[in-house]
């Protein structure tokens, strides 16, 4: 028995190829430290509001990856949860004047609340039909937000959202300090996503992604699992949307429009699905590119991002992170086998 188990461990490391455990724990820990350092250093090198955008979109992309990469569901209406939280956070912050993390928490709960009926209806469908149902919900929310201009400000959006933060003036006025005040919220969202995919629940999600009929035959209530992950994902998108609206000081219809849903899917696929790391990378590429192009006065941003998207999808089918992870793992296992040879 014990001989079998040692054998198991060895074969597992050699044969592992599922994205979430492609890298060995040591490499993953090292990457986590590097990622944290990058995130901490970001506003020193990049204009802080842009750095904040990267993190917000990155977390948003993680929420999409939770569905697309880990459950096999393409949501094409995730702007609904991002936008719902952006507006609700803004509304709470302006009306109640609570510290912004509390307002974001409210926005997140609102996003999760509307995700329950959306998810309930959407998970009955798969593939393109699932995408269509989520898109329909997002569009509905867009039109409601447009009509309810008393609350949402209609075309003008919700303006003057304060960065109230326990009277700490540096955070409330300086975007550099605001970045660090909001960072824990982003990290919390990323942690929830990581916890979810590396739980027994996450294992069931992978089973559902790869073979839903078999998962059902084993006794797993596939629809219930999908609704649950949909609501968790909406919550993470909500955290991201809340940070985004507080950071910008306004929530506009742009947050709910269908191109926002498309953009976040693009970022996720660009970075590599089923990885969690990919989303933030894709977000960084797109946000930085947009920022560079916009400041150089170029108007056809969509053409450039679209072209890059096509190139990456054609050349690196697994996205930026998926390809990079393969590369790292190949180097590592190459070194490991050489090490064994010496010994």
């Amino acid at each position, binding site marked *: *028995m014990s001989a*079998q*188990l040692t*054998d*198991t*461990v*060895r*074969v*597992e490391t050699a*044969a*592992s*190829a*599922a994205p979430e455990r492609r890298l060995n724990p040591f490499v993953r820990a090292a990457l986590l430290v590097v990622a944290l350092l990058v995130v901490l250093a970001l506003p020193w090198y990049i204009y802080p509001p842009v750095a904040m955008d990267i993190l917000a979109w990155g977390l948003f992309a993680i929420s999409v990856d939770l569905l697309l990469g880990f459950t096999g569901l393409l949501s094409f209406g995730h702007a609904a949860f991002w936008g719902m939280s952006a507006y609700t956070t803004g509304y709470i912050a302006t009306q109640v004047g609570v510290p912004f993390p509390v307002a974001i928490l409210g926005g997140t709960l609102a996003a*999760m609340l509307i995700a*329950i009926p959306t998810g309930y209806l959407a998970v009955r469908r798969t593939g393109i039909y699932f995408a269509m149902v989520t898109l329909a919900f997002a569009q509905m929310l867009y039109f409601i937000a447009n009509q309810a201009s008393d609350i949402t400000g209609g075309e003008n959006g919700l303006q003057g959202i304060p960065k109230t933060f326990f009277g700490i003036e540096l955070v409330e006025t300086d975007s550099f300090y605001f970045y660090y005040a909001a960072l824990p919220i982003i990290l919390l969202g990323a942690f929830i996503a990581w*916890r*979810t995919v*590396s*739980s*027994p*629940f*996450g*294992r*069931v999600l*992978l*089973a559902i992604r*790869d*073979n839903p*009929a*078999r998962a*059902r*035959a*084993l*006794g*797993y*209530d*596939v629809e*219930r*699992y999908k*609704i*649950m*992950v949909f*609501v*968790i994902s909406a919550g993470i998108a909500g955290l991201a949307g809340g940070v985004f609206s507080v950071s910008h000081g306004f929530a506009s219809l742009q947050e709910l429009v269908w191109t926002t849903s498309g953009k976040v899917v693009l970022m996720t696929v660009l970075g590599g699905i089923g990885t969690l790391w990919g989303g933030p990378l894709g977000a960084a590429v797109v946000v930085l590119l947009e920022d560079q192009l916009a400041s150089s006065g170029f108007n056809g941003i969509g053409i450039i991002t679209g072209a890059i998207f096509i190139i990456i999808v054609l050349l690196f089918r697994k996205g930026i992170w998926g390809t990079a992870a393969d590369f790292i793992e190949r180097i590592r296992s190459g070194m490991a086998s050489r090490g064994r040879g010496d010994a």
Partner: protein
Amino acid sequence: MSASPTTTEPLSQPPESGTGTAILRTVDLTKDFRGFTAVNSVNLEVADNTIHALVGPNGAGKTTLFNLLTGFLQPTSGQILLRGDDIAGKQPEQIAHMGVARSFQITSLFDEMTLVEHLELALASPTGLGYKFWSSRKRLGAFRERSMELLSEVGLADRSGQRAGSLAYGQKRALEIALALANNPSLLLLDEPTAGMGIEDVDRTIELVKKVSPGRAVVFVDHNMHVVGSLADSVTVLQSGEVLAEGTYDQVRNDERVITAYLGETGDTHE
């Protein structure tokens, strides 16, 4: 989290002993696909502690019947009585929790997962552990020992850490059976367990099914008359969705209607 049900589904019952009682009975079970009647008024009776074979030419409705019995299809009319309770209209996952397990005709696994992970997932199903998105997946390791036992039982222990996608065909079929056995079902449904196997694998599978059958009822579909003859206590022959004949293997293969319909060309070649 409002949507975090922690209630555990009822655990699968240990197989109830008591021979002779019907564990599964269908009453006028019918499935109609827009005018095409795939299963027509089938009355099937499976006694506990027996092995029951479903045979019949392609398109006879065997797999449709399996899908009805396991909730993957809903019957147009009729009843499916599991220990006397009508389970028609229940979902596959509900039926799975009532002690019914199935394998699939076309190998149906999670290619990216290792063998031991497959078994852990199957064993965790009745415990509700799958809903715990806040705890570590290491908790699935609690099922590792039992998983290894099941893998040993089907002769796959030395491949426990391999991904299912990398297995040879016969090994995949064996893993299917291990998965179906995991929660000690009282009714085991095997859809063509030996399909596409070489003769050695076929014999191994026959031995395996024999070994695991005591204490439960087994229903299987197979085209191989050697398998049917070696395993089945009773046989139901289906044709065009209807029951053509029933009885022991010897009774059925000497039945004239069966000979003309199905066994004619293969009935005596495998003995």
